[in-house]
Structure formats: C-alpha cells, structure tokens
C-alpha cells in the first residue's frame, strides 16, 4: 500500500526516513528517563503505600506527570509502531482536500489547543469529585492508569482512523465497518447517550445554582454578555475573536463580583433566590431558545468565552496546587470503597468507581470530537499521536487536579455537601447528625464549620449541594484563598469556579441539543424528506422541541427525585459515556483486525481496553437492572416502593408522602428502562464488532475503507518540539524557498 506513494523528486523530503525514526539511546537520555521513572515511582509509593497522617498534594502531580511522560514516550510509540503505522509520505485530508475552511493543514501545536479545548468539559471535573467518597487512591489509580491504557488509546486511534477516512464520524465508520445492524445500533445509542448526558450535565448546573442568589445572578449575566459579544463580532468588528473574548472575560469577572454585591442586598437575595425546580424549568426553556437561535448570536461567543475560561482555570488550578501544595487528610481507601451504600453515589468500587470517574480516564464522547472536526485539520499523519494521545493525557491531568481540589477540603464537609437532601434534610443540624452517624474515622463535623464556610463563600447554605460542581468550587476556593486574597476572596473563587463550570455545561447543553436535533432530522428525513432540509424552520423547531423534551424530562425527574437526584441519576451518565467508549473501541477493533495479519499480534492494545470497559459497563448496567439492594438496583427500588404503595403505606424510606412514593416508582422505571436499552444496544454493537473481527481472522483481513494514498507535498515535525532530523528537513524546505517554517514567524 505504502509502495504506491511516489514522492515528488523535485521536493525536499516529506517525511523523516524510517531508519532515522529509531531512537538512538545516549547515556544522557537513559539517565533522564531513569530519573523520571524514579521520581514517578517514589510518588506512587508515597500515594499508595506510605500511611502518614496526611499526604502532600504535590505527590499527585509527580505521580501523574511522570506516568504520562512514560506512557507518551513508550506506550503511545508502541501503538504508533504496531497499530496505527502512520506514514508522513502520505498526504492528510487537510492537504488533499484543502479548502481554506473545513480542511486546513493546521500547525500541530495550534491543533493540540483546538482539540484539547473541544474535549475538555465539565465531565472530568465532576466524576473524580464524586468518586472521592471511596478515598483518593482508587480514583487516582484509575484516572492515571486508565488514561494511559484506555482513554488516550481510544482518542488516538479514533483520530487516526478517522483521518485516514477523510474525517468520517464515528457513526459513519460504525455503519461502514460493522454492517447495517451494528451501525444502526451505534447511531441510536449515540443519540440516546447524547440526551442522557445533556440531562445529567444540566442537573449538575441546576444543583449548583439552586437557592444560590449569587450564582444565579452571575451565571444569568453570561447570556447578555454572550449576546453582546455576538453582536460585536457580527456588526462592529468581525473576526476580532480574541479581542471580544478579552472584553467578555472582563465582563464575566465583573458579573461575578457584581453577583456578590447583589446577593448581599435584601432585594437581590430575594429576587435571585430560586428553587431548583424553577431553575430546571429555566434551563429547559433556555435550552430550546438557545438551540434555535443562530449560532453567531449565542453559541459561538459563549464558546469563545468558555475556551478562555477553560484554559485560564486549568492553569490557575494546576499552578495553585503546585505552589500551595495542600496537605490531604482523606484516607487512601475509605469505608465506602467496599460498601454498596455510599451516600454520594451508591454501589461497590467494582464496577462503580470506573463508571463514576468516566471522562477523566476514558471518555466515549471524545470519539465524537476525534472523528469529524480534528482529523480534517491534521497536517501530517505522525502528529496524531501528539494531538490525540497527548490531548487526552492533559484531560486526565485536569481530572487529577479536580480530585486533589475535592480531597483537600475537610472530609466531613465533603459528605455534608454531597449527601442528598433526602439524607441530610437539607439543614445544618440534619447534615451534622447524618455525617457524624456515618462513623467515619477522624470525622467530627460541627454546625459551626458548615455555617462559617457557607458565609465565606457567600452562599445561604452548603448542605446537600450535590453534583460535584460546588465541592470542586469549594476546593478551588480553599486552595486559591491561601494564594490570593485570604478568606475575603473565597466567595469570589467559589463563584468563579461555579461560573466556569456553568459556562461549559450550558455550551454543552446548547451544542448537544443541536447535534441531537440534527441526527433526528436526518433520521426522520428518511421518511419525510422535508425534514432533511436544515433551513426549513418548522422542521428545526419540531425536532429541537422533541430533543429538549427528552432531556428536559429526565432533568425534571432528577431535580424532583425524592431519593436525591445525582446519586440515582449520575450512574446513568457514567454508564452512557463508557458504553459510547466501548462502541468506539469496538469500531477500532474491527478496523485494526481488517488491516491484516501483521496487526493481529498487537490487537490486544485495543481489545484489552474494549474488554475492560465493556465488562465494567455491562456489569454496572446489570447491577442497576438486577441488584436486590434497593440503593443499587433501579428495579429493586421500583418494586420496593410499588409494594409499599400496594400495601397502602403513606410514607416509605425517604419519601414522606404518596406523591413522592409515586415519583420514585416513576423515576426508577425510567432509569431501569434506559439502563436496559443502553446495555442491549451496546451489546449489539460489541457483538457485531467481534463477528467482524473473527471474520477478518478467518479471511486474513478485510475490506480497506481508507482513502487512496496520495503523496504529500509538505513537511512538518510530529511532536511538540522538532527533533534534530526534523529541523534539518525543515531547513531544506526553507532553503528551497518552498514554504515558510511554521511557528511565530508565520505572519
């Protein structure tokens, strides 16, 4: 196949010759990697084995960064050599189909920034916070080991194979590689998963803003700020994106500070004090309006703001952890690791740790980003390792920082914030009684601690602020106030964190609704062709309304759930996300098996993470469907409440009246049904993939759906820094006057 590529002899080399890609080990390099391995090893020993009173957060930074470096330098190169086998003599779609808009050969460092901004969201910030109930060690191990062996592998391979297919989406690849049934199941599953993910993310925002006048004010202000930016970009200064984003950022800071002042006034505290049901209705209405408004007015400007905030907050958080180095007193493995009845999220460590952490270690949603947009912008094939694998390592680092922030706060406070109102009664006294009754070693919560913290962050109360976002915000405030501003600034930092999570999530809600609406229009269009016309407004409105009704219903059920909401619905989010990852890896497995015999020895690189994620999610789904423990099994809970109603009882468990009992019966029915649908669709996709793979084994390979190879006519380095050989080739190109070298001198 590669033999068909005939490079233009008039051009300098378009690739580093294969024999020069073999690393030359010098003693300096060996010493460097030995030092990295040693530091990482010491950090892991400190985290996993040394049991002092406290542990310093800096060890989490060392353990993660050293492991990422080793994973990137060694494991991702194994994948490159045996699974993807990129060839820089081959032109990428960005080169062959260059149109100056969708297909643009983009500087690798810029594309890394783009790709990271697209994959990083609220998920990796929320999951690790909730998983912290099991102690820090299980979560830390899975976030770091999981990303090296599973998450980054998925992102890298999907990016690479989509690039070889002109930037086809994961859905299109599934249809092409897995056949009709597997393909249709994959598309239906992604649509449903999109709905559930939007619903749970919205639930996180509603929980963070409920009864918080400050939060409601500052997050609402993002709407006029985004509208202003949209108008500015359209009519005043088109294309001045950085300029308008800076203006928007300053306005956001003003909105956060203003929110504190407004919440301090009597009228402000009353006017912006909304209960969670009202906010949920607001988010639903907002979701519909935002998704039918033109992109330039609201979505695009908020996207720019969100990118700005994202990079800003992540740098601030990582920098603060390194500088402040908080001491952590949470146990490595907590009482709830081996118990099914943890108050934050129910279920045993196996398999619910993996399902809860989801995005920071392995995120199926990334398959949607890694196929589609990013592959159309890749300049050279070998850069996909840096962008795909490297980008996901960064995301994992964000998850570790979120975990550190969550475990740096007092453990009693953590459980008071993350236990549902059904358990704490929503009051300080109730929370103190409940948390102290858990019998956790070293935890002795007093009402004083809770009321002082609430006052410091400018909230009426911090009891039962479930969903992860408020805990992360408190953790960030806790770390940052030691660096800047003292306790007087805690309110600002807390609301700064809430604001940026809300920005991510509202953008995801808007964009997710649009994508789901698009998929639905496309599907209905097969029956009623008019719906395929995306400019036909009634079609857009009807399909948007259906999709908003879908996630809006689940959001409403979550907000009004008598059992809590997050603790019952969050597992669905994790399961949905991980099943999407299983689908993506199943597609990759089929693709690699079809590449032929030479690839089979190393097929385990894809098969192992696929088997693992399939196992944990199917296991978790089965527990959610079949478990007899009511806290864990949706149907067990369903039956328990149904029986109680049939027996004529008027209160049961945490449900105080018949209406609440009926709500539990209804919610568990929806949750149980969704669990069944997800797991059935995913099993279909995985079976289809295994069938295709086995067929490839029998026939020695399979059809190759890659675009025909075309010789490349450009050169660029593969990694973050150009190697000596790459610099030499770049110089040859520059000397020939064929192309400026990429970099700051570009303009």
């Amino acid at each position, binding site marked *: 196949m590669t033999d068909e590529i005939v490079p233009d002899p008039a051009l300098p080399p378009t690739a580093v010759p294969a024999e020069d890609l073999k690393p030359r080990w010098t003693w300096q390099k060996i010493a460097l990697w030995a030092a990295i391995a040693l530091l990482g090893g010491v950090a892991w020993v400190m985290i996993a084995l040394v049991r002092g009173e406290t542990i310093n957060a800096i060890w989490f930074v060392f353990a993660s960064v050293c492991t990422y470096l080793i994973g990137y330098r060694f494991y991702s190169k194994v994948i490159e050599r045996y699974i993807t086998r990129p060839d820089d003599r081959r032109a990428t779609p960005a080169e062959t189909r260059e*149109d100056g808009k969708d297909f643009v050969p983009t500087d690798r460092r810029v594309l890394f920034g783009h790709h990271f901004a697209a994959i990083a969201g609220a998920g990796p910030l929320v999951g690790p916070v909730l998983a912290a109930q099991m102690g820090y060690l299980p979560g830390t191990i899975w976030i770091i080991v999981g990303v090296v062996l599973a998450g980054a592998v998925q992102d890298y391979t999907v990016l690479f194979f989509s690039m070889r297919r002109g930037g086809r989406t994961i859905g299109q690849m599934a249809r092409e590689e897995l056949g009709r049934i597997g393909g249709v199941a994959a598309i239906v599953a992604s649509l449903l998963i999109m709905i559930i993910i939007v619903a749970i993310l919205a639930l996180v925002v509603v929980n963070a803003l409920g009864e918080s006048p400050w939060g409601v004010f500052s997050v609402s202000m993002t709407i006029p700020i985004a509208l202003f930016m949209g108008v500015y970009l359209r009519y005043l200064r088109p294309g001045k994106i950085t300029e308008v984003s800076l203006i928007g950022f300053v306005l956001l800071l003003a909105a956060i500070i203003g929110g504190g002042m407004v919440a301090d006034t009597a009228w402000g505290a009353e006017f912006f004090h909304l209960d969670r049901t009202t906010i949920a209705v607001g988010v639903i209405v907002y979701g519909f309006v935002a998704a039918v408004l033109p992109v330039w007015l609201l979505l695009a400007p908020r996207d720019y703001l969100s990118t700005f905030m994202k990079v800003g907050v992540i740098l601030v958080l990582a920098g603060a952890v390194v500088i402040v180095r908080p001491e952590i007193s949470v146990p490595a493995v907590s009482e709830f690791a081996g118990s099914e009845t943890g108050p934050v999220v129910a279920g045993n460590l196996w398999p619910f740790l993996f399902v809860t952490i989801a995005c920071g270690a392995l995120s199926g949603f990334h398959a949607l980003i890694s196929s589609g947009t990013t592959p159309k912008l890749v300049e050279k094939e070998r850069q996909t390792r840096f962008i795909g694998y490297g980008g996901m390592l960064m995301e994992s680092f964000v998850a570790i920082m979120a975990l550190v922030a969550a475990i740096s706060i007092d453990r009693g406070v953590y459980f008071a914030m993350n236990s549902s109102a059904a358990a704490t009664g929503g009051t300080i006294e109730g929370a103190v009684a409940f948390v102290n009754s858990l019998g956790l070693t070293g935890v002795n919560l007093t009402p004083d601690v809770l009321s002082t913290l609430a006052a410091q962050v400018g909230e009426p109360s911090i009891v039962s602020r479930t969903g992860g976002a408020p805990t992360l915000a408190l953790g960030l405030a806790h770390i940052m106030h030691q660096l800047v501003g003292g306790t007087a600034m805690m309110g600002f930092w807390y609301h700064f964190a809430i604001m940026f999570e809300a920005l991510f999530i509202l953008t995801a809600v808007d964009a997710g609704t649009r994508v789901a609406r*698009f998929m639905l229009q496309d599907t209905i269009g097969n029956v009623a062709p008019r719906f395929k016309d995306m400019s036909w407004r009634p079609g857009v409105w009807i399909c948007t309304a259906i999709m908003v009704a879908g996630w809006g219903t689940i959001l409403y059920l979550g907000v009004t759930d008598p059992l809590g909401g997050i603790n019952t619905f969050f597992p669905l989010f994790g399961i949905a996300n991980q099943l999407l990852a299983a689908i993506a890896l199943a597609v990759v497995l089929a693709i690699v098996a079809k590449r032929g015999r030479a690839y089979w020895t190393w097929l385990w690189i894809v098969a192992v993470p696929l088997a693992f994620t399939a196992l944990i999610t199917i296991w978790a789904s089965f527990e959610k469907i079949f478990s007899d423990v009511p806290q864990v099994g949706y149907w067990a809970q369903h039956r328990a409440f149904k029986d109680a109603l049939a027996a004529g009882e008027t209160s049961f468990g945490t449900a105080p009246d018949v209406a609440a009992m009926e709500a539990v019966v209804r919610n568990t029915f929806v949750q149980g049904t969704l669990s069944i649908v997800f797991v059935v669709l995913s099993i279909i996709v995985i079976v289809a993939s295994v069938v295709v793979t086995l067929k490839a084994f029998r026939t020695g390979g399979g059809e190759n759906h890659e675009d025909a190879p075309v010789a490349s006519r450009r050169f660029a380095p593969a990694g973050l820094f150009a190697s000596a050989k790459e610099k030499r080739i770049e110089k040859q190109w520059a000397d020939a006057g064929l192309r400026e070298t990429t970099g700051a001198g570009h*303009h």
Partner: protein
Amino acid sequence: MPGTTEARTVGSTTRDAARAVSRAASAGWTSLRWYVRQVMGDDAYRTYVAHERSAHPDREPMGEREFWREHYAEQDRNPGSRCC
C-alpha cells in the same frame, strides 16, 4: 582611566543583557500572540484568503464580513458537538 573603562564594559554588558531580554520578551510575546490568535480562530479569514489566492487565483474571495457570516451559517447547518 581603568575605572571608566570598567564602568563602560559593565554598562555595555548590562545594556546587551537588557537588549537580549527585551528581544526574548518580544519574541515570546509574538509567539504567544500568534498562538492565542490561531487557537481562538482570529486568523481564519486570513487563512481562507491565502488559500483562495493560491488555489483559485481566477476567482475573487469572499469579503471579510461575508466570510464570517458564512462561517457561522455553516455551523448552523452542521452543528458540532462539545464535550461533557
């Protein structure tokens, strides 16, 4: 006078160092500015015009305003996903 010579040498080394620092700072600022503009997408129109001029010299590229309108209209027609 040895003293003055010495002073001059010290002065010129400080000046050299200052110049080197300011050069490095300005190079750093240029790179940072380039990077931010590229990632945020400020240069999308410039990229498009450069492509049109080299690949299709026969046709007139869209104007800046028109380009951005088309840019967002395309996102309306083909929505892209954001991550959770």
